């Protein structure tokens, strides 16, 4: 979102500058054209109006067009076209407030093809905007659309352009257009050259598009360019795969890490682990819902607020579970499976009863939305933050378990409860705390997972099996194992998926786990020594 906002701001500034520069001779004309939206007949009427605005060629139309694209261009009951602002109705040309916000505004309906048309028209109109960022994006839209009619305006813009980056983009746009429209082999060859230097997915698209119709020598030239781009992209693809693997791995890790404590450290076969994750996700939902209703400005902070709450909620439920049920079952670890299975059924149904069976909407705060490009890799913010978060959780837990005195007591209790008690360790308290910690961690994993998965009563079920796989694959009782296990499975999965497909890839991973356990019957980070034999 921030990018968009910057863009919007830039446009306003640019428009301001333009308006000052040029006489408002066209303003009336533009205004009149915009007014036609009110009477436009269906989609084709809207299209015609946009075309007309494009033909006038005045950037004054940009504000209205943009509003149209964002569904903010409305028609008042008395037939005037206005922009619906945050708290008032604005003039579509000047942006000045024209009226109070009234009821019964009618939206001017658009559809995808119109949206594309709007984008292209705006690009054409903003080729000379003051802000280089705007010009750049205009050039890129034109590059992708390669509309021959734009050739002249682009060339004109190119001639006037000072900024070297924008110049390059404009040159590429020109090349793309020429490739689509020219017959001159020389021009085409040069265009291919320019485009293949660009080297990204969009460039590949343009060249492939050309290749479909090219013949003879030109086809060869295009092939060469395509190949060059493809080799480059293939390298990035590998990087991209690794990234996907890491991000999948960190999701697996997060889902599993709570289990690494309740199951790995405490030995409780915790079938309700997934439900703890689910509770975390629902806590996020409740937090966001409250924020949406009462404190909308806090929305970007919603996850940070949800984290401690989710920890507390899930931890508290874990605490109750431990005190109420699990503590009667120490020394009978296999029976914990039965009891926790019962708990998981109850929690699921409880959530279903309270929140309904449907998915609940958990939004991404702005810093978790969208993606950024790293070379040809696209990295989504949500994934990046989840990876960071996973690492953070890992380090914190590692410290808590291996360095803190509570961690020491936890380990002592789980290895020999009776003796630990004889050493003065308050075993009931440590048990409760450990279980609450594991559950709490599962809860905060739920906060992260709510960002990429659906928040429904079934959320937990989806993760429980994977979580057990990860913990066992990595080696029970070892946090490093869980981390490395999660990442390994993630990366392996992502490298298999493109070849084997998602389904077969998953099967292969499972077979791999089975075989791997044959090789290392105690997981990746097996505990060694006589103690475990």
């Amino acid at each position: 979102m921030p990018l968009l906002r910057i863009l919007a701001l830039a446009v306003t500034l640019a428009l301001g500058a333009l308006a000052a520069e040029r006489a408002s001779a066209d303003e009336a004309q533009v205004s009149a054209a915009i007014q036609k939206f009110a009477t436009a007949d269906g989609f084709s009427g809207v299209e015609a109006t946009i075309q007309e605005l494009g033909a006038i060629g005045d950037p004054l139309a940009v504000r209205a067009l943009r509003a149209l694209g964002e569904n903010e261009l409305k028609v008042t009951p008395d037939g005037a076209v206005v922009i619906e602002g945050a708290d008032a109705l604005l003039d579509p040309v000047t942006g000045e407030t024209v009226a109070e916000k009234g009821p019964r505004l009618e939206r001017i309906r658009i559809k995808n093809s119109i949206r594309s048309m709007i984008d292209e028209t705006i690009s054409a109109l903003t080729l000379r905007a003051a802000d280089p960022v705007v010009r750049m994006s205009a050039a890129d839209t034109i590059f992708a659309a390669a509309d021959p009619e734009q050739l002249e305006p682009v060339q004109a813009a190119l001639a006037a352009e000072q900024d070297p980056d924008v110049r390059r983009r404009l040159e590429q746009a020109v090349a793309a257009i020429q490739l689509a429209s020219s017959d001159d082999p020389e021009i085409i060859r040069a265009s291919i050259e320019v485009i293949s230097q660009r080297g990204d997915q969009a460039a590949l698209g343009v060249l492939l598009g050309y290749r479909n119709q090219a013949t003879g020598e030109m086809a060869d030239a295009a092939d060469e360019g395509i190949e060059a781009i493809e080799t480059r992209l293939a390298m990035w693809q590998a990087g991209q795969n690794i990234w996907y693997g890491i991000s999948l791995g960190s999701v697996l890790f997060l889902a599993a890490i709570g289990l690494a404590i309740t199951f790995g450290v405490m030995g409780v076969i915790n079938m309700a682990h997934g439900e703890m994750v689910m509770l975390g996700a629902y806590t996020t939902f409740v937090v966001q819902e409250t924020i949406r209703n009462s404190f909308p400005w806090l929305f970007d902070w919603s996850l940070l607020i949800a984290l401690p709450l989710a920890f507390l909620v899930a931890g508290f439920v874990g605490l109750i579970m431990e005190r109420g049920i699990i503590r009667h079952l120490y020394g009978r670890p296999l029976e914990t499976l039965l009891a926790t299975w019962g708990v998981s059924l109850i929690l699921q149904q409880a959530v279903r009863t309270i929140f309904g069976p449907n998915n609940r909407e958990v939004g991404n705060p702005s810093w978790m939305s969208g993606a950024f490009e790293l070379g040809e890799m696209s990295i989504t913010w949500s994934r990046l933050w989840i990876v960071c978060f996973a690492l953070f959780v890992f380090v914190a837990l590692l410290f808590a378990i291996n360095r803190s005195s509570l961690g020491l007591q936890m380990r002592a209790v789980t290895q020999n409860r009776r003796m630990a008690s004889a050493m003065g360790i308050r075993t009931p308290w440590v048990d409760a705390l450990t279980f609450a910690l594991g559950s709490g961690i599962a809860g905060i994993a739920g906060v992260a997972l709510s960002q990429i998965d659906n928040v429904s009563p079934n959320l937990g079920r989806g993760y429980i099996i994977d979580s057990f796989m990860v913990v066992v694959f990595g080696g029970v009782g070892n946090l490093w194992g869980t981390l490395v296990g999660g990442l390994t499975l993630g990366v392996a999965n992502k490298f298999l998926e493109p070849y084997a497909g998602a389904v077969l890839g998953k099967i292969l991973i499972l077979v791999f786990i089975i075989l791997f356990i044959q090789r290392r019957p105690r997981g990746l980070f097996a505990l060694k020594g006589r103690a475990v034999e």
Partner: protein
Amino acid sequence: MLTVENVTLHYGAAQALRGVNLTVEQGKITCLLGRNGVGKTSLIRSIVGQHPPSGGSITFEGTALGKRSSHDRARAGIGLVPQGREIFPLLTVKENLQTGYAGLPSKDRTIPDYVFELFPILKTMLHRRGGDLSGGQQQQLAIGRALVMRPKLIAFDEPTEGIQPSIIKDIGRAIQFLRDEHGLTILLIEQYLDFCRELADHIYIMDRGEIVHSGPAESLDDPEVRRHLTV
């Protein structure tokens, strides 16, 4: 310091203790002897709170222990060196020792030097896993671990089992040292007669869940008393 009165204990339907009476005096070494399976370990279990007695009472420093949990008793000052060592197998030697910190205020959370003086081997093995140690090394660790708790009373359940002769002597010296220098009270269960006679201030002999003899260490030389220990 510790009084056991009329304690009975059952495992399911089987009775292991039948009205045991025993007193451990402050700053003294009290030794409990008996053949296999007569109930010595069971008595220790009821004292440290690992198995609730089915009757009778146990008083420590004047307060009845009643149903207090094992860890409360440990915090009140009862240390245990259990039979079978019960080392935390996956904790390092150092961590095993540190488990004794649980009941201590943070200023006391150090390992007393005499632990390493008594058992130098522990010092060289601080970072090995407890479960990897040899049987005898584990026994030394178990004793060291109990000392870290700074208990007022330590119950030793066959501490010399599986220990090399020189260290048995060391342990003997250690027990004396603890009594003399630190005023520790000691309850010692032993099969090793000579060891007992040398250390004990007072002995009890148990048979079939009952105390059948009580007297000074020297009484061990009495063949009548010895008879309780033969097969």
